[in-house]
Structure formats: structure tokens, C-alpha cells
């Protein structure tokens, strides 16, 4: 068996790769997505005090640091075994809405809108936000300012836009005062208008992307997300609900603190990303999807008027659940609308401005779990400490990892549809390969892969012949 490896022109911006298996006739047999970045937080935290974890774990990701700070703080709350003051809860909720908003704005405007507005087949050199500035500067400006709004809320409340050290075990470290409320309120009309504008643009484009909606990863699967006691969208604290591809409830009211009793992780040698699965269904059958699409599928309603209106319309796009990966974009925009509404609501909530912001206690448990809905899906931090509060182990169940199998299936379906048999691999059009990346981009994968790392992504496409020979084709 010959193995031919045409090495990629070395690039780093891709922290992931896609491999494609061909059959004897040259037709696509299967395709897979590999993550090639690893930093080892589960080990490198060892021996450090748990109070330090929010600051350290924030560095898992510069795109959604607030979500890691929150999951980490909540795991710390559990180690202290305290109920934290309402003002701290409200501040954390506010910050997570701002986090989801800014991260979704990045995904939609900075990373994906060039595909949507310039087209999947637009020249690669122009297919980016700077190319889009030349075409439609006001659209880009509104997107940039929408992200800026989310980041500004984080800065005003947390003291710093990226890696704010404002929250920790027991609560938060600084009060939020009414003097700073007006600036945030001042942004609301513009932010609402920008999201509605984007929703309008995307919905107007859906007909022209009918093939992509159908073939960039449209398949039934389980969906998992957090809901509140009324079954509505919830990002900070609630219970886990799981539905199947037809909208049937598979599990409800699951306690996120006991995630390890119903979720498992599998390791394989082809990726630095683990494969999480729903234990009762086994591995790999129990794979599930998380994030904007999953949250809209598991929640009955949004709980805010404008997002509810959009959500009712959204749910009609599927039969029980919306299964097309492409609709992650639409789901993301609806969530942005919801976040702006919730931020607005919180500004009128007296508890947010409370003086008591921290519960004080010493270490009362050896094991703690914290979870929240990060922009890309449900995030779990699980810590074990010794009697002195020093970390002995940590397990992080990252949102993007839970979409791993979803991304595999999306790439697989896109490859089968868009890469036609008979092509020898040298002749793939740029737009064709861009669609494989676009399938991944729907999931807005974070960390190693995020920053348009994607547009950027690897595309090392690896073709594996039926006889096992391999050739890598590097996208120009």
C-alpha cells in the first residue's frame, strides 16, 4: 500500500483539517474533521488554588472568556457550597448575554457574512470583511458596532473586554452602579435596529442558498441545551433538555451539575477534540448538537417579545426540530435579538445594582461543577481539589467539542454533494472547497478553530484512495 503525502505548504492559521475518503471510482466515501490544537488546561491547572481558576480558565478562549469565567466561578461556588447574592447572579447573567451577543456578532458579521453577501464563489481574495467594506460599508460598520456594544457592556461591568477578572467563587468582585446604566441603555435602539436589519438581510437571502440549506449538514440528531423552569431560553442557570430530530423530548429536567451521569466523552487518535455523547444511547450513536440551533430547538419559547416572534417563525422551518446546519446563522441572529432584549430588561432590575455581591465561605467540598450556555453551546467545568483547595484534576466539556460529530456529518454531507465523482482532486474549484469550510463555519467552532481560522482554516483537504493512498491538496 502506497501512502502519498503531499505536505501542505506550511500554514498555521488552520488549526483543523478535513480529510476525505474516496472509493474506487473516485467518488467521495466519507469525510472527517480534525482539530489540531492542544494546550492541556486539564493538567496545567494542577496544584493551583481553585480561586485562581476563573482567571486561568478564561484563557482557554479569547472569544468567549466570560463564559469560561462563569462556568469556573460556578464550579467555585459549589466548592464553597454557597448560594451567591442576587446582585452577583444578575451581573453574571448580564455579562453572559453581552458575551453571547458579541461573539455571535463576530461570527455573523466578521466571519460568515462575506460568504452570505459576496457569495460562496466570490474570489477568495475579496471574501472577507475588508472586501465587504468595499461593497457595503454601512453593513460592516453596523456589525462592528453591534459587537462593540457587547464588548462595551463587558468592559463597563467587568472592567476589561477580554479576560475580565471580575467574577470568582462566591460572587463578583465589584458593584455595578446606576451611573453606568445610561451608557448601556443608550445603545439599545441601535443594537435592536442592527439585529433586525441583519435578520431581514439573511431571510431575504435564504432562497438563493436553498442548496446549501439542504446539503451543508442537514440531518436529524439529538439536540441539547439549557432551559429555565418555563422551558424558555436560559443561559446562566437552568436544567438540561434533550430533544431528537423530530422534536420528541428524550430527557428533561437534567441537573447540569450531574452531567457526568448522562454525558460521556470518547477519545480517538485523529483529533485533539474529544467526542461527547449521551450515555443512554452509547457511543457514537449518542452524539448530539449544542449551540444556537440546539437551544432554539430545545426551548419552547424565548421569553422576550421580539425574539419570541422570530422563534415562532423559525420553528416552522423544521418538522419538530430545525435540523439544517445552515440555520445556525438564523438561530444566532434570533439569539442576538433576545440578548439585546434581556440586557435592556436587566437595566431596569434593581437587584442588579445591589451592594452585597459576594458570599464568603471557606472550602466545603472537594468536587465542584459549573455550567452555563456559552455562545457555541453548553459549557461544563468540573474541578477536584485537595483539602487545601489546590486543584488535583479538572475536566472541561467545551461547547464546540459537543458539535464535533455534527461538524463531521456536515462536512461529510457537503463533500458528498459538492465534490463530484470523477474529479481527480486537482480540479476542485475554490468555491466548492469554500462550501466545506462554510459547513464548518455554521457551527462557529471556537478556540483552535475559531477566528475565521476557518475561512482560513486548514483547508488541507486530504484525499484517501480506496487502496489507502493519500494525497493532500492545499487550497490556494
Amino acid at each position, binding site marked *: 500500500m502506497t501512502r502519498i503525502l503531499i505536505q501542505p505548504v506550511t500554514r498555521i492559521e488552520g488549526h483543523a483539517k478535513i480529510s476525505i475518503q474516496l472509493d474506487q471510482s473516485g467518488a467521495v466515501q466519507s469525510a472527517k474533521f480534525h482539530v*489540531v490544537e492542544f494546550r*492541556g488546561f486539564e493538567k496545567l491547572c494542577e496544584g493551583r488554588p481553585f480561586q485562581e481558576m476563573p482567571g486561568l480558565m478564561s*484563557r482557554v478562549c479569547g472569544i468567549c472568556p466570560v463564559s469560561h469565567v462563569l462556568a469556573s466561578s460556578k464550579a467555585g461556588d459549589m466548592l464553597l457550597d454557597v448560594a451567591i447574592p442576587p446582585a452577583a447572579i444578575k451581573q453574571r447573567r448580564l455579562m453572559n448575554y453581552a458575551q453571547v451577543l458579541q461573539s455571535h456578532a463576530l461570527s455573523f458579521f466578521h466571519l460568515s457574512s462575506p460568504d452570505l453577501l459576496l457569495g460562496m464563489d466570490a474570489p477568495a481574495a475579496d471574501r472577507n470583511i475588508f472586501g465587504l467594506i468595499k461593497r457595503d460599508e454601512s453593513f460592516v460598520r453596523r456589525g462592528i458596532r453591534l459587537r462593540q456594544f457587547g464588548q462595551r457592556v463587558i468592559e463597563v461591568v467587568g472592567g476589561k*473586554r477580554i*479576560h475580565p477578572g471580575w467574577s470568582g467563587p462566591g460572587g463578583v468582585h465589584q458593584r455595578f452602579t446606576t451611573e453606568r446604566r445610561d451608557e448601556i441603555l443608550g445603545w439599545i435602539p441601535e443594537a435592536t435596529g442592527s439585529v433586525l436589519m441583519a435578520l431581514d438581510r439573511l431571510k431575504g437571502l435564504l432562497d438563493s442558498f436553498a442548496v446549501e440549506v439542504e446539503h451543508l449538514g442537514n440531518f436529524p440528531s439529538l439536540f441539547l441545551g439549557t432551559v429555565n423552569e418555563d422551558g424558555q431560553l436560559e443561559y446562566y442557570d437552568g436544567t438540561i433538555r434533550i430533544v431528537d430530530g423530530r422534536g420528541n423530548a428524550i430527557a428533561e429536567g437534567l441537573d447540569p451539575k450531574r452531567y457526568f451521569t448522562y454525558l460521556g466523552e470518547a477519545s480517538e487518535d485523529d483529533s485533539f477534540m474529544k467526542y461527547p455523547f449521551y450515555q443512554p444511547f452509547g457511543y457514537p450513536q449518542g452524539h448530539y448538537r449544542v449551540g444556537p440551533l440546539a437551544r432554539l430547538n430545545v426551548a419552547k419559547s424565548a421569553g422576550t417579545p421580539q425574539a419570541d416572534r422570530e422563534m415562532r417563525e423559525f420553528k416552522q422551518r423544521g418538522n419538530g426540530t430545525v435540523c439544517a446546519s445552515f440555520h445556525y446563522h438564523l438561530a444566532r441572529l434570533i439569539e442576538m435579538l433576545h440578548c439585546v432584549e434581556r440586557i435592556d430588561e436587566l437595566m431596569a432590575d434593581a437587584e442588579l445594582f445591589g451592594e452585597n455581591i459576594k458570599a464568603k465561605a471557606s472550602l466545603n467540598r472537594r468536587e465542584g461543577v459549573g455550567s452555563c450556555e456559552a455562545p457555541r453551546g453548553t459549557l461544563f467545568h468540573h474541578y477536584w481539589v485537595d483539602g487545601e483547595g489546590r486543584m488535583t484534576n479538572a475536566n472541561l466539556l467545551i461547547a464546540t467539542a459537543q458539535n464535533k460529530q455534527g461538524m463531521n456529518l456536515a462536512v461529510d454531507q457537503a463533500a458528498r454533494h459538492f465534490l463530484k465523482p470523477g474529479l481527480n482532486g486537482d480540479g476542485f474549484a475554490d468555491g466548492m472547497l469554500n462550501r466545506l469550510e462554510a459547513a464548518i463555519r455554521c457551527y462557529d467552532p471556537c478556540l483552535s478553530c475559531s477566528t475565521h481560522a476557518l*475561512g482560513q482554516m486548514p483547508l488541507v483537504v486530504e484525499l484517501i484512495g480506496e487502496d489507502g493512498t493519500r494525497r493532500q491538496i492545499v487550497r*490556494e
Partner: protein
Amino acid sequence: MDHVKPKFATAWLGGCSGCHMSFLDLDERLIDLAGLVDICYSPILDVKEFPEVDIVLVEGAVANEDHLKEIRRIRQRSKVLIAFGDCAVTGNVTAMRNLFSIEDVLNRAYRENSLVVSGVPLENGIIPKLLDRVLRIQDVVTVDHFLPGCPPSPDAIHDFVVELLAGNTPTAQGRKFGS
């Protein structure tokens, strides 16, 4: 007058992308920057191969063999290379795994904390080999300027780039990280 805009790039090795997010936090100043320089390579562009550039900001530490090759290529093709953020400058959080062996770090993530283990990602020809020790950029290639911070603030990035474009030596004084 015909003015050729300086070619500007940003690149990302082993890090959290927070420095790139802080770069995006230039917000509308990004549009102004795009008028001053030709942004020709960045994780937010679709350009796949690092081109010849005048200025490059490199985020992250050197953690695997792909990073090693990439930083050498970047050095070769860049006039001014800036170590961008603490991971690039000191190794920072990315280098914290240097306290442990590679085996221990991988086993923790992929054996001890997994329910099903079909394999541990090591050398299978697809994913890059991890270096035994995470390195700072200056451990591998010559660095022209250092822009520290976790991440450097948008103002620090802005002032730094503006100074550089004006032909001055940026000092990273004044509006430093943390301010």
C-alpha cells in the same frame, strides 16, 4: 501621488485568540486601518499562505511542529515582526504545560477524563506533533518588537501600529496593558 500601502499581517500560533479579539476591538478604527495599510494575511481573511509583508503581529507561543515551521516562514517573509501579547512574549499560559511531561498532559485529557478511549491523539500523520517544551517566539526567531498584555489593550495596539507606520520606534509606554 502614488502611495503603496505597507503590507500588514496578523498570525496566530498557540494561544487563545484573545489578542486577535483585542485587535478586532479597534472597532471602527479597523476601517480606518484598512485605509492605511494593505491587510493581506490574517485569520479573518481567506488567504492560505503567508505572503511577503512589511509588518506582522504574531499572537501565541510555539507549541507544536506546525507552529515551528510557520514562525520560521513568517520571519523569512516579514520585515518587522512583533511578538503580540504575553504568550508570544513570555510563553504565558500556553507554556504552563512545561511543568508537566507531554505524556502526562495528554493522558489527563484523553485517558483519565474519557469514558471511551479509542486512541490518544499523537503521531498519526494528520495532527502535528507537540513540542516537548512550549517556546517563546524569541526562542526560535529574532523578534523586532514586543507588545505585551493578556491581551494588549486595543488602545495599546492602535498606538503601537500608528507609531510604527509613522516610522517611529514604538515604546509600548504610556497606554500599557492593564490600563
